[in-house]
């Protein structure tokens, strides 16, 4: 295990019992959640509030011939019916996406996916709004849909985006990383090359709370208050100002309690814009909350990558190179949320945890008649797809070489002395020490014993599989010199005020959807100032109350905002030193810090606590020159690099040979996210992500039929795992701090979602080895496993 002692800058990290600062602390937000007192968008009720509902397209691809709203308007409880034509008149029929494309707010010309927004009804209550939807008469001319990314670029494929000038095909982008020629050369010289098509099917984040908004436009002072299910309130405010033409200082975006985001709540959905338009048109606040089917069918999906992978190695198992070509299905509008420079997100981190000689990837994005979105479901901007690819390819190589997959990984890891490590596709990994983490997971699993058990079971015809995944995550976007979203640098601000009595409030620019920000960020301040976390309020999610920043997604809160909070606390601590010196009538350089207190060097009995200093600052102490009368500070943090958490996961499955049913018997997860602020919250994040992984590996998929009907539009069709499908998680950790992060912390929010699917699929494939199987695609449902056992595994799309 890497010990924190290696990094004396953070002596407290890793100590799990510390009362003030880091350690296991019950979540400050939980009392309100466990008592049912959370306050979500749908709990907001404003005087005179009306309710909106969206009419959605029943087909995937169709020309809009006519739309008749007269009957709906005649409904006694309806206030307004808004169509694409109405929006056109306001210049709001199309809105920019986060990927420099445009998306229809309401259909004006053509329906491009099933469930697309066609009209918006505003009524007295949500019942009437729904009833009125049935009174709108729409005539469609149905067109053949493009449902298979593989044929989207065929010469005879219908052109989906004929709204874009000069567009004659469904091609969105080609994007490459790495050196193709160098990679080809490495492959040409390799003893062994294996290739495999690997599909990461379309899945959905499916947060417990669906998306919604309450818009309140005050026509008198031109002020818009918008309560939204958003993971990025500040970015939304700026975009609303840019799109709707409402001046930014007149917009307040509030993101109250959010019931799960997972990337689903990063983008701006037509529903949010329609709530605003509805409020402007009716002069009343308008609430719009989508239902489950709307959420599953129209909001941001994840994955949908068809990857052709190839790995090259020597006979003795030294991995030389990796290359892949990817077909990326982006749906009808390119609305993925990612740093502008990277149309395939961070997929090019696909070299994983291995020291390769060369690597190259090429990603082609295409339009299809499916819902837009694409970077969601806790994916760290497509590190999920990258890790899945490399971790499957390494297992396929191990099978080919007849090597144990753990041994193959251990042999090829980037070595600790190679960090900071520059990989072949342009990343600089900040820190890592992979072998101890891998060994710990093997020790916790009893790896050798498991292999023995498997051997015995195989002899009896029982199917047991052991799957390993070793992942390196890439989180904390990001340095402003490399990363922006629509021109907004990916930095975060923090403001800290210590009140006269020594209680504090820290205002942060990121927003919690369940991650525990109110606890973690209080602990960071507590660690730096030595006041109890209970005495620190964390304010977030309201643009009127918090400094600018880009929000919570891609596991960026602790790497970016956590850095900001640590630095702002240090700034306050520095300021406190000057005030303490004035109070003690000594020089600042004669003072020494111990947690919570400045004291005179050599005379520890003489000192001032933060509370005393705060009272002094706001009181009558004669302040030194240049120090004003408060104990406040603010910073905006620009991280120098991303952080690279990692982990070793081992999964044990049993498969019923008669039915193909997979049971995850054990799952060992050893994570390294650097400094551990609150181990309990970390474990919670890991448990959630592992459960997500079971879902994706075994059951989740948004399928479509040939006509373009979405087959995953309800929780009866789109399955997510329950407590019954998951084992007792066995978690462990190592600590390799980030060298550049102010407190050595890395992100943890998505590690388990990224790392677990390959471990589970690797276990399933391992169990099926007696059938000669080396790959099967997710989801490993009983039917699909059985088909693989019959020797005909099938890609899911």
């Amino acid at each position: 295990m890497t010990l924190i002692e290696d990094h004396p800058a953070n002596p407290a990290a890793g100590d799990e019992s510390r009362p003030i600062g880091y350690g296991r602390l019950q979540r400050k937000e939980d009392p309100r959640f466990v008592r049912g007192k959370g306050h979500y968008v749908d709990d907001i009720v404003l005087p005179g509030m009306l309710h909106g509902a969206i009419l959605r397209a029943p087909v995937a691809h169709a020309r809009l011939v006519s739309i008749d709203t007269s009957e709906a308007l005649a409904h006694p409880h309806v206030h307004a019916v808004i169509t694409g034509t109405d929006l056109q008149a306001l210049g709001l029929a199309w809105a920019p996406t986060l990927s420099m494309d445009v998306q229809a707010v309401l259909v004006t010309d053509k329906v491009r996916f099933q469930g697309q927004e066609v009209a918006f009804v505003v009524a007295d209550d949500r019942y009437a709004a729904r009833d009125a939807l049935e009174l709108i008469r729409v005539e469609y001319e149905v067109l053949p849909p493009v449902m298979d990314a593989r044929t989207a670029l065929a010469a005879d494929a219908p052109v989906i985006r004929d709204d874009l000038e000069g567009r004659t095909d469904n091609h969105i982008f080609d994007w490459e990383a790495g050196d193709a020629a160098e990679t080809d050369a490495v492959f040409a010289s390799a003893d062994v090359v294996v290739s495999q098509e690997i599909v990461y099917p379309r899945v959905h984040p499916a947060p417990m709370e669906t998306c919604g908004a309450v818009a309140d436009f005050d026509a008198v002072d031109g002020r818009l208050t918008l309560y939204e299910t958003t993971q990025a309130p500040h970015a939304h405010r700026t975009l609303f100002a840019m799109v709707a033409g409402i001046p930014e200082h007149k917009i307040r975006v509030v993101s109250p309690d959010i019931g799960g985001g997972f990337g689903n709540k990063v983008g701006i959905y037509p529903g949010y814009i329609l709530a605003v338009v509805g409020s402007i048109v009716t002069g009343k606040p308008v609430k719009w909350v989508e239902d489950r089917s709307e959420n599953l069918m129209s909001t941001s999906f994840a994955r949908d990558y068809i990857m052709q992978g190839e790995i090259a190695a020597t006979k003795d198992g030294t991995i030389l190179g990796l290359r892949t070509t990817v077909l990326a299905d982006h749906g009808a509008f390119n609305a993925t949320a990612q740093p502008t420079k990277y149309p395939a997100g961070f997929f090019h981190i696909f070299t994983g945890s291995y020291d390769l000689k060369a690597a190259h990837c090429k990603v082609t994005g295409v339009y299809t008649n499916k819902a837009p979105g694409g970077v969601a479901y806790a994916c760290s901007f497509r590190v999920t797809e990258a890790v899945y690819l490399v971790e499957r390819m390494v297992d396929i190589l191990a099978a080919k070489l007849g090597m144990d997959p753990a041994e193959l990984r251990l042999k090829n890891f980037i070595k600790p002395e190679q960090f900071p490590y520059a990989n072949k596709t342009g990343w600089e990994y900040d820190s890592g020490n992979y072998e101890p983490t891998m060994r710990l997971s093997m020790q916790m699993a009893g790896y050798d014993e498991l292999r023995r058990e498997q051997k015995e079971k195989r002899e009896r015809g029982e199917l047991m599989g052991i799957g390993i995944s070793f992942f390196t995550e890439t989180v904390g976007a990001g340095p402003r010199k490399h990363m922006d979203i629509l021109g907004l640098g990916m930095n975060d601000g923090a403001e800290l005020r210590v009140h006269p009595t020594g209680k504090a409030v820290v205002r942060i620019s990121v927003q919690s959807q369940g991650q525990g920000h109110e606890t973690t960020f209080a602990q960071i301040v507590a660690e730096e100032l030595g006041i109890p976390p209970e005495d620190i309020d964390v304010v977030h999610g309201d643009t009127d109350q918090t400094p600018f920043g880009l929000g919570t997604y891609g596991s960026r809160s602790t790497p970016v905002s956590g850095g900001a909070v640590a630095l702002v606390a240090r700034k306050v601590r520095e300021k406190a030193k000057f005030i303490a010196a004035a109070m003690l009538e000594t020089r600042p350089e004669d003072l020494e810090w111990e947690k919570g207190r400045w004291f005179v060097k050599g005379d520890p009995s003489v000192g001032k606590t933060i509370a005393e200093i705060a009272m002094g600052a706001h009181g009558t102490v004669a302040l030194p020159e240049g120090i004003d009368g408060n104990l406040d500070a603010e910073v905006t943090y620009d991280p120098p690099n991303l952080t690279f958490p990692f982990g070793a996961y081992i999964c044990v499955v049993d498969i019923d040979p008669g039915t193909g049913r997979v049971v995850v018997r054990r799952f060992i997860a050893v994570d390294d996210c650097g400094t551990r602020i609150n181990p309990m919250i970390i474990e919670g994040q890991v448990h959630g992500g592992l459960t997500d992984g079971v879902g994706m590996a075994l059951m989740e998929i948004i399928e479509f039929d040939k006509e373009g009907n979405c087959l995953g539009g309800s929780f009866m069709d789109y399955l997510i795992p329950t407590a019954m499908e998951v084992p007792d998680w066995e978690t462990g950790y190592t600590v390799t701090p980030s060298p550049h992060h102010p407190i050595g912390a890395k992100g943890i929010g998505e590690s388990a979602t990224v790392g677990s699917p390959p471990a589970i699929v690797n276990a399933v494939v391992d169990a099926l080895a007696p059938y000669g199987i080396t790959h099967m695609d997710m989801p490993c449902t009983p039917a699909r496993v059985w088909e693989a056992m019959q020797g005909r595994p099938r890609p899911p799309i």
Partner: protein
Amino acid sequence: MQIPAPFDYARASTVDNALALLERHGPESRILAGGHSLLPMMKLRLARPEWLIDINDLFELDFIVRGADAQGADTLRIGALTRHTTLLESDQVHALFPIITDAEKVIADPIVRNRGTIGGSLCQADPAEDLSTVCEVLGAVAVIRGSGGERLLSMAEFHRGPYETAVAHNEILCELRFAVRARTGSAYEKVERRVGDWAVAAAGASVTLAADGTIEAATIGLTAVGQTGTVGAAADALLGQLPTEALFIEAGRLASVACDPIADQRGPVDYKRHLADELTRRVLRRATERAHASATSTATQEG
């Protein structure tokens, strides 16, 4: 939130009152039992009853009673409003008809089971519904009441096809009757993609052994694979034979041939046929074991 079309609601106080309400409000009125099939369909606006006649106060329909029927035969009577959970937790049901307990364990989740009823399940007649198969396998008799009085129907008469039963709009299913047989065992097994999901396929069987250990009676039922009624051919192959693995294999084969599944997200046709085969073998094995156990305990009691 999914929102149903407008509807009215009445709460019945007795079976007669419920029947009167159904008459009064006409064909667009529907009985509401546990609501776990009807309400989801209403929220998706696939069902649009104008009136709901709530029978949840009809405690007289919530019972499990063993006794002699009119002909003096040992019978277990289960009221239509008996909840899944009650069935699952009943020791009496488990002792007499373990197939019911087997099935209840895999129907939906505790929240659904706390509300959903056996009557609602049978009247919904979803092709993937588990208790219909169970009732077919056990040769249950349905007791239906209308304004004209009571009628008794066999399961073959009761089921008219997917989502269709012989219960008329102005009638109520009141109870189900199960004949208790000695030396009998039964079992149910289902393959689902996830706990709480409807069956990919399921099979149920009941086996009665003669004193000489041969199979005196057997029924096999299948769920979600397009099988109407029990699988006669497979059961016939077992009659008069000593239960052996070879026999079960043959029965499984016959079941897989007899059924007529369709491909959907739960699986392709060949997989579902395979499951009909595999699960038939499994439930026959388990039902036979249980019949042996029951025969032994009967013998002990008699001895």
